[in-house]
């Protein structure tokens, strides 16, 4: 035996480390980018970073291959061939910006609503939204409408914050965690870190999900529910808890509108609204003095049940009375919902028992005196350590808004919102509905060459805030905030192309898109969408959507369908700002924001989109982007991040403000701010004092903190709205009792969906189709190692998901004589796809599923034309129509939640038929050309070989 070889054990990783923020997904983890010889040697998680605490997911770890992907766009492009052909010529940035300015400026003067500006995976919505407002079009939104607006809207309207990025379970203290419909989510790493903590502590983790992969695989209990029925399950648990008296009455009285008095006057415009005093304060019934007093009156002992008559003769009942009567109804008994949900009664009862046990028998206490907003001093924080989280399994159904409300109802009934061990708000949330704007976009809000009079997006308080004209027609291109989707708080991006193509409610001239693959995986009816993008007006010979400007960083499917391409940098080459004004990365205990900065210089003629927006804004002369003498206000995005002020002293970043960099939240601009961020690992974190950490909605110390930080100018406590008055107002409009009255065509639908108390109704597609013809559900899940469409150009990630099988439950396989590897037709009311299957038994018996967005259009993403992504991979999107089946009167609703307009991706119903073996998945589309003659991708990669030792 010879001597062992010597191994170089102590080589430094690289020459230099630069700390920035990952953007392989929207989780926004901190990363250490190690550079060697000017190239990326290694990316690891930043241990000090509050989001990921050092860990890094598969996508983040594949950043090298993302950054160097051959699919990166290289220069601005102008279309030369027909749309969809992929024929472009490279142009200079000057020409690109002048062209865009000409296209946009002309419409701005003529009819600004004819520019529709929609952004996808946008993390700079506070800039893009501001830009759109200054531009003056009513047609702006980001992707929330097809993503998770059900979560956001239901959460904000019920508890003042949402599961969706605005809160998190108290991972360190919770004893029971119930997760609904989550495969991965935006909190990718924090959820995994959290689940691991639960496991270590022996806390119980229940996953409610038709599919048992990923997180569900490690759950202590898996509830394989039938899609679209979660509200029934939750309300049945509510029913059981009420029957068992396991509810937190003290919490309900303190923090909710349970005691508020609801007017009982059927047939009048006040029916179901809260009785209020002259100052518009809601009234409660005081049981000692037996009279109605304003809610929150000191020392009042409000009634939670009973019927009362107010001095003015109106009959009223505490809203809790209505709530109890509703949910004690035997139709919510476990036995009554078992068949519909597919969950046995004993499991529902077991879940209720487990919730009750953890909430009430294992209550926890943190010794920390605090004062509530009524001035009452408490000796400690008492927690009910049950927490919940929910995402798209709930959100992406047309009953998702109410289902989400049902989950919040359950949380509140057991007193577990923002308590130790419960679901906790992340600042700047909670934020009451009243602190959100109402939407702007009605005719009086805009006009030639002027800004929109207020923000585009917000929350209507009632039908009076809808964006409709005299006749009740939508004023936005996506029909958000119209009778179709009155509380479409995030807009309805998934309807833009279809509506613009149909000229309904009106045609547009320029479609301006950013970071959204609308010609492929983010549209329903993908083939139809591609056709709409290429359809021409027979009379004029012009495209129905005449001009399309698009910004992408890669050669995605959408590129070929645009006329002018503004190529973006990769996430390692630009400044970005993860702002409290936007979708922040805060945590329950700390206020946080972050930046990205160019840790590596672009080697192509590309520009950060945000800087391009600023340039365009200045060229267009938009207020807010040019100074008095027509000089651009900002040099570039970095300059804007530092100097822009939304309100005096409040800018995009909260950290290191003030001349000395010692101010937090409020403070004058600090020219060294970015430098300070970079030194600090590209993030900023300010701890919330312990006294302010819980019951933020009603905690005086937190409210003061929020004002100090600049979230609000005055305290904005939140009273949880279990009974929702705004919803009732829409119902009254549907009854014709309130102005503006809902049109006849919309009345039934609104009455069914706008129950002021959370309820379940059958998902709209399921209700509309023949359930025997389409007996199964088809849903998609996020793969953990792939982010939507943008991982397939990544040489490492694509090896993990090169194609996607259709996972078919064993029972269906046995019934239809199918086995793994067989080909099937999967057929919906809208179309059919031919794909390969894989049998699985760890799934709800009626639910077929696949990984989302693995299928690619041939030729895109710089992949070989024969790449499995294009030949075998597939999308369910081909089967999903953007409209529901026609009704008797020919009217077709958008395939969305009737309250929020949330795209109902997971309502899809299908049947399955065995097919002849195939070579390629169908439908199959011709390959698209790479836009310009980019260098051929290499046939072999030996990344890092020069450093081998």
């Amino acid at each position, binding site marked *: 035996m010879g001597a062992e070889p010597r*191994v170089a054990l*102590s080589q430094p990783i690289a020459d230099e480390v630069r700390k920035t923020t990952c953007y392989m997904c929207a989780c926004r983890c901190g990363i250490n980018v190690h550079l060697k010889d000017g190239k990326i040697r290694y990316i690891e998680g930043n241990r000090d970073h509050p989001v990921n605490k050092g860990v*890094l*997911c598969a996508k983040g770890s594949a950043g090298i291959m993302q950054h160097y992907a051959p699919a990166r766009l290289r220069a601005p492009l102008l279309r030369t061939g027909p749309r969809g052909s992929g024929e472009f010529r490279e142009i200079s940035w000057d020409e690109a910006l002048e062209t865009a300015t000409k296209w946009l400026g002309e419409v701005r003067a003529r009819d600004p609503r004819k520019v529709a500006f929609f952004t996808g995976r946008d993390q700079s919505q506070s800039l893009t939204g501001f830009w759109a407002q200054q531009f003056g079009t009513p047609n702006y939104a980001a992707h929330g409408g097809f993503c998770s607006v059900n979560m956001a809207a239901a959460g904000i309207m019920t508890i003042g914050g949402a599961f969706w990025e605005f809160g998190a379970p108290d991972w360190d203290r919770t004893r029971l965690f119930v997760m609904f419909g989550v495969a991965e989510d935006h909190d990718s790493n924090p959820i995994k870190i959290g689940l691991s903590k639960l496991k270590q502590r022996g806390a*119980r983790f229940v996953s409610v999900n038709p599919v048992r992969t990923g997180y569900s695989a490690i759950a202590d209990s898996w509830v394989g529910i039938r899609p679209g029925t979660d509200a029934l399950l939750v309300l049945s648990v509510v029913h059981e808890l009420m029957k068992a008296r396991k509810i937190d009455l003290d919490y309900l009285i303190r923090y909710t509108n349970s005691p508020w008095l609801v007017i009982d006057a059927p047939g009048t415009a006040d029916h179901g609204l809260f009785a209020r005093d002259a100052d518009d304060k809601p009234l409660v019934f005081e049981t000692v003095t037996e009279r109605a007093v304003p809610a929150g009156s000191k020392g009042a002992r409000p009634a939670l049940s009973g019927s009362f008559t107010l001095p003015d003769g109106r009959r009223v009942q505490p809203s809790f009375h209505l709530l109890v009567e509703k949910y004690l109804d035997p139709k919510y008994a476990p036995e009554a919902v078992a068949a519909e949900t597919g969950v046995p009664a*004993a499991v529902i009862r077991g879940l209720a028992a487990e919730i009750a046990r953890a909430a009430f028998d294992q209550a926890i206490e943190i010794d920390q005196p605090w004062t509530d907003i009524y001035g009452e001093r408490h000796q400690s924080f008492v927690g009910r350590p049950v927490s919940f989280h929910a995402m798209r399994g709930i959100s992406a159904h047309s009953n998702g808004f109410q289902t989400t409300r049902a989950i919040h109802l359950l949380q509140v009934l057991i007193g577990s919102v923002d308590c130790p061990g419960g679901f906790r708000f992340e600042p700047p949330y909670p934020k009451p509905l009243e602190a959100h704007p109402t939407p702007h976009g009605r005719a009086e809000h805009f006009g030639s060459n002027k800004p929109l009079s207020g923000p585009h997006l917000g929350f209507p308080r009632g039908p009076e805030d809808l964006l409709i004209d005299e006749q009740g027609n939508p004023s936005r291109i996506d029909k958000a905030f119209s009778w179709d989707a009155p509380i479409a708080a995030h807009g309805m991006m998934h309807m833009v192309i279809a509506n613009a193509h149909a000229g309904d409610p009106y045609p547009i001239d320029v479609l301006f898109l950013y970071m959204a693959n609308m010609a492929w995986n983010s549209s329903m009816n993908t083939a139809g969408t591609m056709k709409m993008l290429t359809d021409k007006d027979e009379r004029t010979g012009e495209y129905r959507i005449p001009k399309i400007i698009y910004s992408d960083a890669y050669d995605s499917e959408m590129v070929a369908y645009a006329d002018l391409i503004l190529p973006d940098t990769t996430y390692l080459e630009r400044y970005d700002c993860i702002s409290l004004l936007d979708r922040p990365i805060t945590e329950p205990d700390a206020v946080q924001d972050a930046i990205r900065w160019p840790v590596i210089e672009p080697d192509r003629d590309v520009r950060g989109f945000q800087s391009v927006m600023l340039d365009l804004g200045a060229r267009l002369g938009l207020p807010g982007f040019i100074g008095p003498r027509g000089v651009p206000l900002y040099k570039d995005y970095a300059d804007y991040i530092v100097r822009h002020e939304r309100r005096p002293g409040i800018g995009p970043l909260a950290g290191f403000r003030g001349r000395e960099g010692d101010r937090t939240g409020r403070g004058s601009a600090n020219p060294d701010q970015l430098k300070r961020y970079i030194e600090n690992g590209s993030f900023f974190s300010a701890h919330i004092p312990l006294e302010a950490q819980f019951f933020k909605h009603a905690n005086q110390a937190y409210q003061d903190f929020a004002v100090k930080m600049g979230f609000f100018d005055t305290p904005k406590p939140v009273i949880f709205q279990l009974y929702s008055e705004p919803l009732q107002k829409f119902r009254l409009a549907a009854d014709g009792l309130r102005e503006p009255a809902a049109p006849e065509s919309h009345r039934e639908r609104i009455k069914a969906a706008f129950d002021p108390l959370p309820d379940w109704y059958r998902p709209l597609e399921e209700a509309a189709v023949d359930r025997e013809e389409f007996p199964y559900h088809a849903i998609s899940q996020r793969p953990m190692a792939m982010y939507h469409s943008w991982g397939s150009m990544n040489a490492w990630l694509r090896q993990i998901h090169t194609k996607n099988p259709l996972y078919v439950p064993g029972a269906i396989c046995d019934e239809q004589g199918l086995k793994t590897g067989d080909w099937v037709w999967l057929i919906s009311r809208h179309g059919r796809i031919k794909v390969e299957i894989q049998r699985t038994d760890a799934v709800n018996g009626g639910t077929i599923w696949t990984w989302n967005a693995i299928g690619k259009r041939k030729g895109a993403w710089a992949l070989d034309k024969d790449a499995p992504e294009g030949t075998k991979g597939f999308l369910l999107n081909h089967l999903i129509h953007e409209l529901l089946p026609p009704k008797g009167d020919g009217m077709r609703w958008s395939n969305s939640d009737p309250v929020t307009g949330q795209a109902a991706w997971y309502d899809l119903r299908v049947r399955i038929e065995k097919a002849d073996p195939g070579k390629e998945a169908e439908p199959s589309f011709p390959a698209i050309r790479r836009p310009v003659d980019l260098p051929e991708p290499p046939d*072999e990669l030996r990344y890092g070989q020069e450093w081998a030792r």
Partner: protein
Amino acid sequence: MTSLPSLPTPKKLGLVIDLDVCVGCHACVVNCKEWNTGGYGSALSDQHPYGADVSGAWLNRIHTFEVKPEGGEIVAEAGEARIVHFPKSCLHCEDAPCVTVCPTGASYKRAEDGIVLVDEEKCIGCGLCAWACPYGAREMDLAAGVMKKCTLCIDRIYNETFEEVDRIPACVRTCPANARHFGDLADPNSAVSIMVAERGGIDLMPEQGTRPVNKYLPPRPRKPLSAIASMLHEAEDTADAKGFFAWLDGMLDRL
């Protein structure tokens, strides 16, 4: 060097993988690839990276299994199938057959800590060690023509240019679910040994006689919800709302 160390190695460095918390995210897989391309030995190459039959060399891969109970543990609610995500890299076997078959001495097990390594300078790329390994822990790098395998991140764990906390394998450091643990399994008092003892850590394919150092912690038994359904005893007969309101009044008086 092809002979195994004649005495048991004083240290047995290895990984402990917790199947109860692995969510199958592939973070360890990609981070391992990233660390090891441009690190120890030649780069981990990829063939046809943007083509139809893309493949590459990886030192760690995750399989996903479906386990159907057959009279064994009752899982979930009704003996339903269960999914287990299963990471797999070199187990640094004590009786490593991959070492003894190697004709060149390229493959060796370190006497000091038991890490099984390939000295790429000597490797002729015959592939026999990959055949000998029952676990599929060795992959040929087709560009370099040498055998690649998990090095237990030997260029991290002893790396003096690193902070102490970071002297752990890349896959362990990156795992978001903390499903991977690194330590000395020869030391009964090490955290990993204690974990293995407490959780009943197991060997993969013990019948192959390889005596792996790496251990797997089996998934914990699941807890059916239906078993506790009866715990939610009903306080009073409350079939109707009236009973509930009566209770409510009583409770409110006490608050």
